[in-house]
């Protein structure tokens, strides 16, 4: 309340100061939900760079993605938009585009040659009807497998590369008395694990058919049935504490060597880093793949509401320049655990997992757009409920699950 009051006072002060003279710094209020320790250190990188470039960063951090997005959307619809707002790369801002509330960044995209410097999946995800509507600020890979070097050594196991090896390793970990798979039974992580199996076994083709095309023939195929069976098999390797655990508590089990591995996005690296663990030594990172590596690309973007006047427009332009600077993107990603969207950035200073991911990004065949980029929230939500039900309730058979998925695919969204 006080914060929003301050913010609106700030906006008022800005408006009454018009016409802006050259001495007034470009003021940019940014709504985001980066509030954890690692996240706020990361956003500080962009804020400092913006201030250094002559701007004035007004930080409006709102805990919780849904809360932050609701606040940003309400203010934009209500006629008091922030200068920029964070969304996850994907379809979260579709309605704002349809209602003509966002400014496009076509000029910037052209000037910086986004066609070549951004991965196609990410550029597609911010493009609507031929116009670019948002600036990607980081890329997160969603289907990493993190392994504890200590736990693997104790069990005499090696880091698995595909699903056959995965079950061998899981069995060894179980035999050694460890929790084989650290897990947080929240609906979105249950979906995350399902997605890791789906893309790991079926590659980008099956993944896209499932989430983008909602192909009924696919879910009735024996290949998909194999994915479903594999997903169910994994349930035997989690512990009873999973349902009431957060994802970072599960990561802590891997860090402490109590659990062998965890499937999670690369934001989990922040937890390893704050426990002073080094990638490649204390913990391993890989993406499971039966065929080719299929790295799921998601991440974050900044969207810019249509500016009300030239002062705001100038601040937006400056902000766009700052957050697309390759060196700044690398510095941001170092804190965030992500990788820079720009392929021409120099990632030598990042950890081994990030460098690996950067290489995969250069190869069109080893990546796929993440779940959120392919399906609208309504579909993702409906599927998430089904996946969660199947994962937790052993009485839901694979046949029933597949029939229900086909049912959702048949609905109009």
């Amino acid at each position: 309340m006080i914060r929003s009051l301050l913010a609106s006072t700030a906006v008022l002060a800005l408006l009454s100061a018009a016409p802006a003279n050259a001495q007034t710094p470009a003021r940019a209020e940014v709504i985001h939900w980066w509030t954890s320790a690692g996240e706020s250190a990361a956003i500080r990188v962009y804020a400092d760079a913006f201030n250094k470039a002559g701007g004035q960063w007004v930080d409006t951090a709102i805990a919780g993605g849904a809360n932050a997005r609701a606040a940003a959307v309400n203010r934009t619809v209500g006629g008091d938009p922030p200068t920029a707002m964070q969304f996850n790369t994907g379809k979260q801002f579709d309605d704002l585009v349809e209602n003509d509330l966002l400014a496009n960044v076509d000029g910037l995209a052209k000037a910086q040659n986004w066609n070549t410097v951004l991965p196609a999946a990410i550029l597609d995800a911010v493009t609507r009807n031929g116009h670019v509507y948002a600036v990607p600020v980081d890329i997160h890979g969603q289907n990493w497998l993190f392994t504890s070097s200590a736990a693997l050594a104790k069990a005499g196991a090696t880091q698995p590369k595909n699903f056959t090896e995965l079950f061998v390793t899981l069995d060894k970990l179980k035999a050694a008395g460890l929790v084989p798979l650290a897990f947080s039974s929240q609906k979105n992580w249950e979906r995350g694990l399902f997605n890791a199996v789906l893309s790991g076994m079926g590659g980008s083709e099956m993944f896209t058919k499932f989430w983008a095309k909602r192909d009924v023939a696919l879910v009735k195929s024996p290949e998909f049935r194999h994915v479903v069976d594999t997903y169910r098999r994994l349930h035997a390797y989690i512990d009873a504490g999973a349902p009431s655990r957060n994802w970072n508590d599960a990561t802590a089990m891997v860090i402490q060597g109590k659990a062998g591995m965890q499937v999670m996005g690369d934001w989990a690296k922040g937890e390893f880093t704050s426990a002073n663990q080094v990638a490649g030594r204390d913990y391993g990172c890989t993406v499971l793949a039966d065929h080719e590596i299929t790295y799921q690309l998601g991440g974050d973007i900044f969207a810019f509401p249509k500016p009300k006047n030239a002062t705001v427009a100038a601040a937006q332009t400056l902000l766009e320049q700052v957050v697309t600077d390759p060196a700044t993107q690398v510095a941001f990603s170092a804190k965030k655990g992500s990788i820079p969207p720009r392929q021409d950035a120099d990632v030598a200073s990042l950890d081994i997992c990030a460098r690996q991911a950067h290489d995969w990004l250069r190869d069109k065949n080893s990546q796929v757009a993440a779940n959120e980029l392919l399906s609208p929230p309504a579909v993702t939500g409906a599927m998430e409920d089904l996946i969660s039900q199947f994962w937790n309730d052993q009485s839901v058979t694979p046949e029933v699950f597949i029939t229900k998925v086909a049912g959702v695919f048949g609905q109009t969204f």
Partner: protein
Amino acid sequence: MAKRRLIGSRVSAQVALAPALLIALVIYCGSTLWTLWISLTTSRMLPNSVFVGLRQYEVLASNDRWLASIVNLAVFGVLFMVAALTVGFLLAALIDFRVRAESLFRSVFLYPFSMSFIVTGLAWRWMLDPTLGFEKLLHDVGFADAHFNWLVRPDRVIYTLVIAAVWHASGLVMAIMLAGLRGVDREIWNAARVDGLPVWRILVFIVIPMLRGSFATAFVLLATSVVRLYDLSVAMTNGGPGIASEVPAKFVMDYLFERGNLALATAAATTMLITVIAVVAPWYHWQGRKTHVGAAH
């Protein structure tokens, strides 16, 4: 003169009430109508005006999670109200026997009510977590075969919500009942004792009928907390495992924000409102008639 003054004060009272009435009409009724309208459209993250009739309600009726939420709320509501009223009344009855350190017990029993559902949910989540709470405690003291894993069992998890909610609300029921019991004339107890009635019969056949008002108050308070049950489910289980502890209010909130589906969320909210009206209206009507009949006599 006196009459005019009376009219004058009535007018000024009405003037004073007008803003409150206006706010109630515009905000409450206005929002309700708007919600009803949105539920008939195809609105996603932002409201639109594409009319599709009752299609959202059809989608809702075939939504597994919504159906599970309704069943959960019914199970929770019945068990919670019966248990909270029983436990609350028994606590009050025991305290009413003038136990020593009465005020201490009163505070202890009322204490849970001062906590938010979020804190209650979190505390019970930890206590019922098989790897942290009671089950681990039993294992650690040597009962290796003891099991209490209801929190992670889809078929039992709803009862853990009842346990936490009863713990939370019993103290309030106790306070209401105790106030009622203190209003019961001591002479009635004495008279019944002289007649040689056992205590339980005095309680059940004489005292409880006299406490009708207290029970009604407690019932209404508990019933409203059943309908808006949300934070306990969020904090304790987040609707899980799977969809086993989802509740209607959580369905509405999730679809309003996280899932950006205003139309379906408002359809669910409207269904909740209609259900509540369907339950309350006959009761209200019956109450109104009773007063009316009473006045005629």
